[in-house]
């Protein structure tokens, strides 16, 4: 009887992983269809030319910075050299303990101006606002520490653009990325947010705040994340466009309609996953007020960011993501399986609940019981073949995703990169995946304990070519 129970558990574990892989496969198909649609549409776009003029909608790029003295100047230089014609860059120093504000003041000859702005959303007090004598498009907001969401809210208060672009202070943006991200706001008036792809810069040479040659990171952890980011952005986000819109626009790179964000009350300061929470709130508000709120992901505009290189920092990041997800699911639990919220309620939210939230819990329980059963001799060792098969299918899906990305975007177009990525796709299933399960479970535990802090990210800075 017990033996049958344990065999059942082994089958559930394998079945669960296979189901996840099948879902991933469907998402790849959906992403392929969507990419084809976007490419056909953009091939005949007239917007690129129109958006080269000064009449293009003004974008305020918000750069919340906390202990970013190593990379913030590169990021700002990169932003100021973007080809978008109507741009403002607002850096928000969130009470950094290091010299983030100091390096900016020195690098751009910033001078204090009187801190006058419309305080539409409540934020921690602003100490001072600086403007540059050399670069009139740059504004530095120096404020007391209040967290990332608070910084973004302060930036939105100070911003003068009708669109705001939230990016991380360690992020580099492709020269024409903003032009592309603005397009949906012009073609679809109900668009409230648009996100782009984020790729990893680790070990890629940077010249003039631009990636000159994207390489697969040398260290295993960032390289594993590179493959993971391809899966998450190129497939995960893109697939949601035809399925009723996204629920996540990365905090590292997304453009929002300022009025819509202000009407929704800005970023939620008490949320750990403030980027996802804002999108879900915008969409929820759209359904509740009857004003459509469309959220789109575009695969072509790219931003590059630095991935954690140590397991400790990565673990903190992943457990924070898990806490953020749980926080959003609880705040907006009313939406799950609620037809009033359309595709967001019937598709996206249930997906995040079942696949993203439940997955580590189910996998952890099943795997633990399976190994206990094996040790106790209650499970047929042949069950391990099924489990290994499930991970094999997982690796196949990842390689298929990399192949799709290679043909569509030519991100890593070299033989040795492909070979490396295949290796990492296999290692990911065997080592990295169980690790992420542990980190996410740790996140669940911390969330249940009411821990909401971010933890510190260690920056290495960009590699000069």
């Amino acid at each position, binding site marked *: 009887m017990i033996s049958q129970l344990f065999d059942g558990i082994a089958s559930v574990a394998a079945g669960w992983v296979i189901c996840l892989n099948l879902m991933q496969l469907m998402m790849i198909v959906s992403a392929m269809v969507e990419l084809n649609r976007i490419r056909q549409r953009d091939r005949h776009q007239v917007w690129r030319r129109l958006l080269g003029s000064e009449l293009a909608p003004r974008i305020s790029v918000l750069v919340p910075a906390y202990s970013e003295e190593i990379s913030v100047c590169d990021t700002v230089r990169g932003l100021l050299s973007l080809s978008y014609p109507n741009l403002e860059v607002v850096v928000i120093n969130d009470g950094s303990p290091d010299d983030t504000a100091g390096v900016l003041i020195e690098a751009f000859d910033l001078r204090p*101006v009187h801190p006058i702005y419309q305080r539409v959303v409540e934020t921690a007090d602003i100490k001072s606002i600086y403007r540059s004598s050399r670069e009139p498009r740059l504004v530095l907001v120096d404020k007391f520490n209040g967290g990332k969401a608070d910084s973004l809210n302060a930036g939105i208060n100070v911003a003068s653009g009708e669109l705001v672009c939230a990016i991380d202070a360690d992020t580099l943006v492709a020269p024409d990325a903003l032009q592309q991200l603005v397009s949906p706001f012009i073609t679809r008036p109900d668009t409230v947010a648009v996100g782009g792809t984020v790729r990893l810069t680790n070990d890629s040479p940077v010249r003039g705040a631009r990636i000159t040659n994207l390489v697969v990171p040398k260290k295993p952890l960032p390289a594993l994340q590179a493959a993971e980011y391809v899966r998450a952005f190129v497939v995960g986000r893109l697939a949601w466009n035809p399925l009723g819109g996204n629920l996540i626009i990365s905090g590292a790179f997304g453009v929002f309609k300022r009025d819509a964000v202000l009407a929704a009350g800005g970023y939620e300061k008490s949320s750990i996953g403030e980027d996802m929470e804002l999108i879900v709130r915008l969409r929820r508000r759209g359904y509740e007020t009857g004003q459509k709120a469309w959220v789109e992901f575009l695969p072509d505009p790219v931003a590059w960011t630095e991935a954690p290189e140590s397991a400790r920092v990565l673990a903190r990041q992943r457990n924070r993501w898990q806490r953020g997800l749980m926080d959003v699911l609880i705040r907006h639990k009313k939406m799950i399986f609620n037809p009033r919220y359309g595709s967001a309620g019937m598709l996206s939210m249930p997906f995040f609940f079942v696949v993203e939230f439940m997955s580590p819990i189910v996998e952890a329980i099943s795997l633990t019981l399976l190994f206990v059963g094996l040790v106790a001799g209650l499970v047929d060792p042949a069950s391990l073949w099924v489990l290994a098969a499930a991970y094999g299918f997982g690796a196949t899906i990842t390689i298929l995703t990399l192949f799709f990305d290679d043909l569509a975007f030519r991100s890593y177009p070299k033989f040795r990169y492909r070979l490396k990525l295949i290796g990492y796709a296999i290692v990911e299933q065997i080592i990295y995946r169980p690790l992420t399960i542990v980190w996410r479970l740790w996140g669940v535990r911390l969330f249940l304990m009411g821990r909401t802090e971010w933890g510190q990210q260690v920056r290495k800075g960009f590699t000069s070519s």
Partner: protein
Amino acid sequence: MRFGLFVIAWGSVLGMSLIYIVVGGMADLAQRLLARRRAVAVEKISVLLFESEDEAAAVFEEVADLPRRTLLSLIQPLAVDLDGQARRRLQGLVAATALQRFIRRRAKSRRWRKRVQAAQLNYLVTHPDFDRRALLNDAHALVRARAVESFTAEQAAEHVPDLIRLLQDESLAVRISAQRALISAGSAAVTELLGHLDAGGGSSLAALEVAGNLSDTRLTKAIERYTRDSDPAARRMACQALGNGVGSEGIPMLHRLLHDDEADVKAAAIEALGQLGSQASVVLIGAALGDRAFLVRRSAGIALDTLGAPGHLVLRRHLRDPDRYARDMARQMLDAAAARRGLDLVPPIGTIEIPVVEPVAAKPQLVNTTQDGSSGASVLIAPRVADVSDDQAVLAAMWDLMAPEIGAAEPPHTGIGEGDPA
């Protein structure tokens, strides 16, 4: 069975890896070959289009012999942006090769993607039987948009009625392209546009925008009518049209619109005055710094900053404004201007002595002054529109008001902050 599943799964890993490596490698190779071929073709085409007649003639045959697909893919993105000699040469190339017939055939294709290609290249076709109107009436919005966008100024002038009709198109892309084409048609579009503006209707706002960009004084009257329209959007657009430059005739109308009930309209009127460089309006605009709507206050601040020295003088006066919002906006604009010029901030309130200014009797009634009981400072308030008539006189009067305050002998000329003690 279980082992079989394992073999299938890891077999698929192996298979997928091979496909990834082999197909990816082939794609690399194809891309490299294509890039090399394109580089050679681009070089030849650039000689044909931009070098001397002799050099162009030398490569003509080689370019004409390029595979049609390569040739098309290269000239398609270029074609719209060419003009003058380059355009004539490209037209010659299209006429000499089979491309002209190819484009005409594509224009009649049942597949919209092919028609888009024809639409994009339509201006290169010189054949008299080619029906451009069919592309403008196409069922697919992208075909219409592309056809309109690729029009030369002459072609746009020939199709003004069609373009005006397209201002009402359901697709935003088509509407914007039609607006741009009408603007490129210039004075040839004015008569039809006047008729359309007089008739009113759904596309009046788009037409107004075109009218504003044409800067033709014949359109001023029509635009003026829209400044009295019951629709705030029309009044706002009329302000923008006036600001885009039908000359100083628009200034009195804009002054009137500064008292509009709608904040949007007021802000647009202020922006327009700033755009027109109406230095005579600085005091009127300054009064808007204390408006209830942030949008209006911000527009007033930006406009005053744009208007240079006179605007900055008014901003400085408003540093002593009893209205906190006006004070804040003035300070913000002066701060930004100071930062731009690498100067220190405007001295904080209290360090500048601003004398009480009496009304200027001999000059046009520029401002009314009122006494701020608490500080003894004078505050400028908006004059009546009818009072502002002569730019030079107004500027002189304003200088009389401001000169003692900044201790300068000569009136300022142009440029941000000139005459500004900061």
